[in-house]
């Protein structure tokens, strides 16, 4: 762990809490799936919390993000609430998207989340366009485009990174390299260094330990500030790991990765445990304070799940709503 010079104890504790919220949210999402209470399936991001929180804690509410099918962490880190998120996962009317998007399409416009995306790499254009808007309209907003290593196979990403570099757009391409695109190892699918792709366009690239929330946050603060001042775009490779399979149903996965590897990341490289230990070692928080955070977050999640399970489904009349925006031409 390396201290971030611009943060104080309050910031540290908020980052800890946000990471715990993501971990706890995913545990509950998994339980909802296993107990057959959640329609469809979902992709969990447990293990990647430091990357998500470290980046989003560097952003203002009006800054934008685009997210992925593994998007619960981005959404929570950018400010979303448990209740509306669980409602969305269960297809309930009070969900962020009135139950029409589900896990893979949660958008939270009020907090600058332009949406998760079920097409791998599908939001690269949207993020770059949001940055073009910000530059043209002079809003000073920065956009972070989250994607996984699997999206490095998509041509769209290269087209828009080229334009972002040509036009100096305030966008940060945040590649969460969790070592697997679906069921395949990154080194079997991506030739050469990952950052070389962005470097080819003259984009400044960085590689950071995505399990170290302070290192991620320090880098993100610096790049967000510079992007705001017109120095963008940037590319960050966040080295991280996903604890679960590609999705909740991907249980038997030894054919593509070993239990030993999973155990190593979970026991030695866990971003929450390591950050908690650092907070205690640095005397920023006591052990029982952190335990109280964990407990409070779990209670919040349980209440939100209970609320969402009891919440009403959308009215049948909603099925035809929102195909078109209202201003009838």
């Amino acid at each position, binding site marked *: 762990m390396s201290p971030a010079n611009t943060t104080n104890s309050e910031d540290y504790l908020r980052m800890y809490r946000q990471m715990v919220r993501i971990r706890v949210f995913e545990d509950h999402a998994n339980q909802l799936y296993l107990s057959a209470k959640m329609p469809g399936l979902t992709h969990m991001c447990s293990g990647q919390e430091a990357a998500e929180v470290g980046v989003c804690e560097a952003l203002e509410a009006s800054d934008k993000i685009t997210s992925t099918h593994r998007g619960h962490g981005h959404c929570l880190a950018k400010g979303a609430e448990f209740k509306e998120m669980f409602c969305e996962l269960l297809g309930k009317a009070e969900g962020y*998207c009135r139950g029409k998007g589900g896990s893979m399409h949660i*958008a939270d416009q009020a907090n600058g989340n*332009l949406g998760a995306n079920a097409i791998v790499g*599908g939001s690269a254009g949207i993020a*770059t366009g949001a940055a073009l808007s910000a530059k043209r309209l002079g809003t000073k907003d920065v956009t972070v485009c989250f994607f996984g290593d699997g999206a490095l196979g998509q041509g769209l990403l290269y087209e828009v990174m080229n*334009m972002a570099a040509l036009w100096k757009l305030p966008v940060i391409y945040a590649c969460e390299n969790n070592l697997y695109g679906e069921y395949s190892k990154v080194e079997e699918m991506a030739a050469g260094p990952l950052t070389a792709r962005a470097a080819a366009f003259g984009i400044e690239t960085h590689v950071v330990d995505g399990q170290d929330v302070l290192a991620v946050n320090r880098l993100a603060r610096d790049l967000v500030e510079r992007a705001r001042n017109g120095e963008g775009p940037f590319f960050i490779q966040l080295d991280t790991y996903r604890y679960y399979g590609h999705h909740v149903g991907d249980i038997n996965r030894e054919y593509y990765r070993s239990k030993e590897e999973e155990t190593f990341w979970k026991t030695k490289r866990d971003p929450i445990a390591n950050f908690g230990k650092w907070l205690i070692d640095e005397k920023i928080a006591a052990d029982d304070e952190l335990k109280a955070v964990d407990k409070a977050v779990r209670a919040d999640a349980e209440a939100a799940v209970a609320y969402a399970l009891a919440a009403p489904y959308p009215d049948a009349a909603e099925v035809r709503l929102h195909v078109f925006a209202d201003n009838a031409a």
Partner: protein
Amino acid sequence: MREITLSKAVNEAIAEEMRRDPTIFVIGEDIAEAGTPFKVLSGLVTEFGTERIIDAPISEPGFMGIAVGAAMTGSRPIVDLMFGDFLFLVMDQLCNQAAKTHYMSGGKLKAPLVLRTNLGATRRSAAQHSQSLHGLLAHIPGLKIALPSSAYEAKGLMKTAIRDDNPVVIFEDKLMYNDKAPVPEEEYLIPFGVANILRKGSDITLIATSSMVQVAQKAAEILAAESGISAEVIDPRTIVPLDEETILTSVRKTGRAIVIDEGHQSFGVTAEIASRINEKAFYHLDAPVQRIGAMDVPVPFSPVLEDLTVPTPQIVVERARRCVKGELFYAA
């Protein structure tokens, strides 16, 4: 009234809207100094600069996606897609992203963008620069589809498209760019979903879109002059939304209908409109509803072959005559 080309009409519509609304920008390939290969946007960069008339690399999915993101965050982009055939390159960004954003977000996000492109064969441009793909997009909920059939229509529909809060795809007939028509100096908009009855008639209804409107008009003139058949000609103007009522009212009066469209005939616009007539005006029909679309073949290069693939006034005249005579109950 002054007459201007379709090309000039589109240019005027975009310029007027850009003066009114600073959030509008245009993005596409060779649109600034070059003004597009068809020169439709010539001169706009002089007035609005390269900040608003943005030359993009040859990366159609990329700038389509950028337009979607810009539209979701307060801009109103106009995407210039050089040829309608390139739609296949932008399908994910247009159909999975732009078209679904509003619905998937439960109405929170909007993507108010215009994709202007073209359709139409017989320019001797072969199979990848000649297609008419509007029917394909009309299948996707969330997209509006406008099909101007003259300079007047092109200006009024473009202005409406730009002000619409949804993704709108507007197809211009690339063979009509130099065709002139009366266009008023003063501002006007043409609302979506309101068909235009170009010619009143009592024996048969010809429903025609875009490039096929002039084909239907010509056919109606020939039918009146040579066969004494009175054809009503309707241009739906937009196929999404579709002004079903105007079409049904006409068919209930005439009892016969031919739908003419330059998209491939199978599974296309002609099928959809014919089907709605069958569903909603069946007992008013004196003959089966007829469809005339482009031949179901890739557009061939050789002029001799290419000309065989698109509907002509003569084909429409012949079909209309047989329809009115009652010869079409068993086979076209």
